[in-house]
């Protein structure tokens, strides 16, 4: 698989590690009670795991050390877009 890092250019996926699906923004805790647990549970564990278009966090660890957000098609591994992940998981 070849990933075009916005900084480094096209590189083999070997240089990257993938963390998994972009799970939406990190919830903002309020009182650290049940509601927060529920929100964090969804954020940390539950995944759409889409058949088709998905967004994943890839880390260019053997490159520019940037976290990237990669849009891919899980049916055929086609890469549809790569962007710096800055702020994607912001609250």
């Amino acid at each position, binding site marked *: 698989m070849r990933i075009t890092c916005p900084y480094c250019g096209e590189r083999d996926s070997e240089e990257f590690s993938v963390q998994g699906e972009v799970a939406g923004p990190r919830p903002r805790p309020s009182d650290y009670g049940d509601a927060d647990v529920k929100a964090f549970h969804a954020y940390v564990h539950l*995944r759409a*795991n889409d*058949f088709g278009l998905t967004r994943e966090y890839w880390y260019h660890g053997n490159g520019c050390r940037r976290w990237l957000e990669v849009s891919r098609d899980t*049916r055929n591994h086609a890469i549809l877009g790569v962007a710096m992940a800055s702020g994607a998981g912001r609250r």
Partner: protein
Amino acid sequence: MRYSAYNLVAQALRCNRHWKPLWRDAAPRPAYDIVIVGGGGHGLATAYYLAKEHGLSNIAVIERSWIGSGNAGRNTTIIRSNYREPGNIPLYELSMKLWEGLEQELNYNVMVSQRGVCNLFHSDAQRDAYARRGNMMRIHGVDAELLDEAAVRRHAPFLDFDNARFPIRGGLLQKRGGTARHDAVVWGYARGASDLGVDIIQNCEVTGFTLTAGRITGVETTRGVIAAKKVGLAVAGNSSRLAAMAGFRLPIETCVLQAMVTEGIKPLIPGVITFGAGHFYISQSDKGGLVFGGDIDSYKSYAQRGNLPVIEDVCEGGMAIMPMLGRLRVLRQWAGNVDMTMDGSPIIDRAPVDGLYFNGGWCYGGFKATPASGFTFAHLIARDMPHASAAALRLDRFSTGHVIDENGQGAQANLH
């Protein structure tokens, strides 16, 4: 048709003209008491045990393609119950016991080969971790032996003890572990279930659910709506797709797991051997091919194929400990889509929708669980109560924190 020595001779004398289909290739009927989605090992075993253990008969297994086309038909066939977590051991050990009687149970030889599973360790810390695991197994009545280096040398003298980057210090051996003939497991359960009246419907994809007042009343398929009082999901890598149809999300990401087989050779290695300082495990099939694999291709995929880096990684691991593999040739590489959970352990539980039951999250290790998964899932569906051996495999364990994380990797699916 029962298989017996007599029968084999009789058939041979009649030029093998009178064999019957192993299972009926059924067309869907409008309604069933229970519909199991997924004609892999787990779905078929579930149907078999529903009929056999719970006396139910109005059951269909719905498979979108041919039975066994999923992970059941593409795994590296390792069976073992050498787990560490108390939530896991009972299920895998029940499975092991069922494997041990399966050919008689099914009157079908699934070629269970208990030639041992040896997990190598390479450091003192790893030895202690394996001792912890072995002890936990023994406490659960499971066989486990901790081998020192000398014992490993006797067990597998061809390993590279002297020139290894990560020297082999010993191994955890489960002698009862081994392999089974994966396709035969599918066919054996299909035959058994079909003989007990289960309809096995191939080329029929579930595309949705019908619900009344929040309760499942059936499945929509590419061959029409099929009504059902209860629906059980056993679709492995496709779990999340089915869950989405029913309106919920799972703690699962579907990743690629690859495997390889070499050209067939005369017997070379005993049982299963796994490398503890890299990603590599290997066994030899009855046909002579060395079947091996390693880590998952950690990205999400439904494509049933992987990429080169993992293959290189696996072969490097192989050459790190078994340099005699060098000239043996990889004949074929393939992959499956594995349902990786956030703690690396499976789920057998009621789904958050009434009438729907969920079995999945088997990661890269559900083949060995096939008999027990079917057995306990059938129990859950028939009795609406979890079977004791699968009681810990709950869906809500992620929100309560009762996770079953064998390797302590945490909530990242592809790390398990």
